[in-house]
C-alpha cells in the first residue's frame, strides 16, 4: 500500500469503516477511524475532516488528484492507495486487529 504525500497517521488507529457514500460516512464512521473507499472526490477529505477520521485508503487502484492530496495534508489526514479492493482491504485490516463500530 502506498502512502500519498500527506502525513502518516500518528495516532493509533483501532477502528475502520468502509463506504462510498459520504452522507453515510458523515452519519456513521467512528471518530479516529480509517476509511476505505473508492470515492476520490475532494469532498471525501472534507467529510473525513468533519468526521475526524484518521485516514483514508483509496482502494481498487484509484488515485485522487493532486489538489485532494494537498488538502488532506492541510487537514492532517493520512491518505493511502492500493490496488486491493475494499473487501480485501477490510479483511486485511480486520486481521491486523482493527474493528468496526458494531463489534
Amino acid at each position, binding site marked *: 500500500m502506498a502512502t500519498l504525500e500527506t502525513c502518516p497517521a500518528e495516532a493509533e488507529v483501532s477502528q475502520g469503516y468502509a463506504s462510498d457514500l*459520504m*452522507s453515510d460516512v*458523515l452519519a456513521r464512521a467512528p471518530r479516529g477511524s480509517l476509511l476505505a473507499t473508492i470515492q476520490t*472526490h475532494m469532498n*471525501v477529505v472534507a467529510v473525513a475532516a468533519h468526521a475526524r477520521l484518521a485516514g483514508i485508503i483509496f482502494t481498487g487502484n484509484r488515485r485522487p488528484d493532486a489538489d485532494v492530496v494537498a488538502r488532506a495534508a492541510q487537514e492532517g489526514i493520512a491518505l493511502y492507495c492500493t490496488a486491493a479492493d475494499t473487501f480485501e482491504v477490510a479483511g486485511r485490516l480486520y486481521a491486523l486487529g482493527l474493528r468496526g463500530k458494531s463489534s
Partner: protein
Amino acid sequence: MNTFQADLHIHTKLSPCGAWEMTPAAIVEHARRQGLNAIAICDHNAAGNIAAVACAGRAAGLTVIAGIEITTAEEIHVVGLFPGTAGAEAVAGRIQASLPRVDEAYTKLFGEQVLMDPAGAAVGCETSALALASALTLGQAVSLIQEHGGLAVAAHIERPSYSVYSQLGDLPLDVLFDAIEVSPVGNRPIGLREKFARYGFPMIGSSDSHYLHEIGRARTVFHAQSATFEELAAAVRGIDGRSVAYV
C-alpha cells in the same frame, strides 16, 4: 411579465426505468392537463426522444425543453437543460462514448430503452447501457453542460441515492451549478432542503416522473416574459426582475 409553471425533469421510455406509458403524446397530454406551460425531457444519459416530444408539444402549444440526466463517475445525477435539441444530443454523445453496450442480461435487469415517434410507436432501441455511470466526474459533467449553453442542475438534492448529498455529503464549493433541484413533497427529508437553501443557488422543483401520474407533482414557477428556455435561463439567473421558485 407572466408567471409560468414548469416540470423540468421528466423521463420517457428511453430511460430503462421509465414506464411504457411514457410516450411523447401521453406526456404532453398529461402536462397540459396539469396546467403546465413547459416541461423538460431528461432521460438517463440520453437525448433521443426529445425531438419526438417537442413535436407532440408544438401541436399542443406546450414548450418542451431539451434536457438530459447524466450519471457521473461518482454516481451523482446531474440534470442539463439546453437551448435546443442539438446541445442535449452532443452532450449525450459524449456521455455514451464511455458507456458499455447493452446485452440481453442488462435489458432483463434494467428494462428496455425505446426510441419513439411523437405518437408513441417504437422506432428503435438505444444500445448504450444508459442505467450505468458514465466516466465523467461531477465537475466534468457540469462543465460539459455549460459549454453547450446549458443550465447544470444538481438533481433531487435531498434524495438518499444518486444525489450530490448522498454521494459526497455536501455541495462541493468548486462546482458551480446553475440551480439545485428539490423533489416532490413526500420525498423530502426534513431539514435538508433548508440546509441546501443556505448555499444561495437558485432552487427549482421537479417531479422526476417515470410514470404519467407523477407529472407535475413538483414544479418550478418562473416569472418571465415567455415560457421559453431563454426566459427560463434568465429567470434562473434573476435577470431584470425575473425569478424562479419551487412548489
